[in-house]
């Protein structure tokens, strides 16, 4: 396997694997948020704001993987 095909594979894996953890985390957070809203509907606005912010934080973990994938695809330092 030469470097470029390895890079393509690695890019795919980087995005795919990086999506697992944040996916679980986002699911957990959203579920808890829904439970919180169900228990306390008057706090919905606050819960939603916090939820969006935390979701963005988790999302950025996947984005890191995506950045790595983009580096491998478009700015690979090992391919001259």
């Amino acid at each position, binding site marked *: 396997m030469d470097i470029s095909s390895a890079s393509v594979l690695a890019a795919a894996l980087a995005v795919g694997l990086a999506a697992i953890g944040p996916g679980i985390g986002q699911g957990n957070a959203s579920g808890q948020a829904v439970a919180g809203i169900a228990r306390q509907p008057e706090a919905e606005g606050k819960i939603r704001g916090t939820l969006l912010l935390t979701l963005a934080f988790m999302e950025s973990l996947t984005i890191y993987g995506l950045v790595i994938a*983009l*580096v491998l695809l*478009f*700015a690979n330092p090992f391919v001259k």
Partner: protein
Amino acid sequence: MFDFDATAPLMAVQFLILMFLLNKVFYTPLSKVLDERADYIQSKEKDARQRLAQTKQLTQEYEKQLVGARKQSQEVIATAQAEAKKITADKLAEAQKLAQIQKEQVQQEIETQKQSAMATLEQQVDSLSRQILEKLLGAELVK
């Protein structure tokens, strides 16, 4: 993609310039306006609250006065009623007394008339019985 060059420091400088310019034309004047408006609203609210308190006090006073007036009027009504009752009672008593007196007078009159009638009746009985005796026994014997 990850090629750093003079773009980054220039962008930072540019951002700082933007920050200072925005501070001049956006944050400072509009913050001042917002603060002034907040002060204005607060003072107006305070004023309004004071006025509200004043009106509340005035209403309370009026209510107190109203209650006093009502009490007074009730008192007046009560005294008037009592007076009226007294007057009616007096009048009634007087009328009853008058009636009593008249009744007594009438009874007395009746009595006297009865007595006079009795007296005349006795006289008549006397004379009649004398006549009867005269008729039965003769005039001489009767004397």
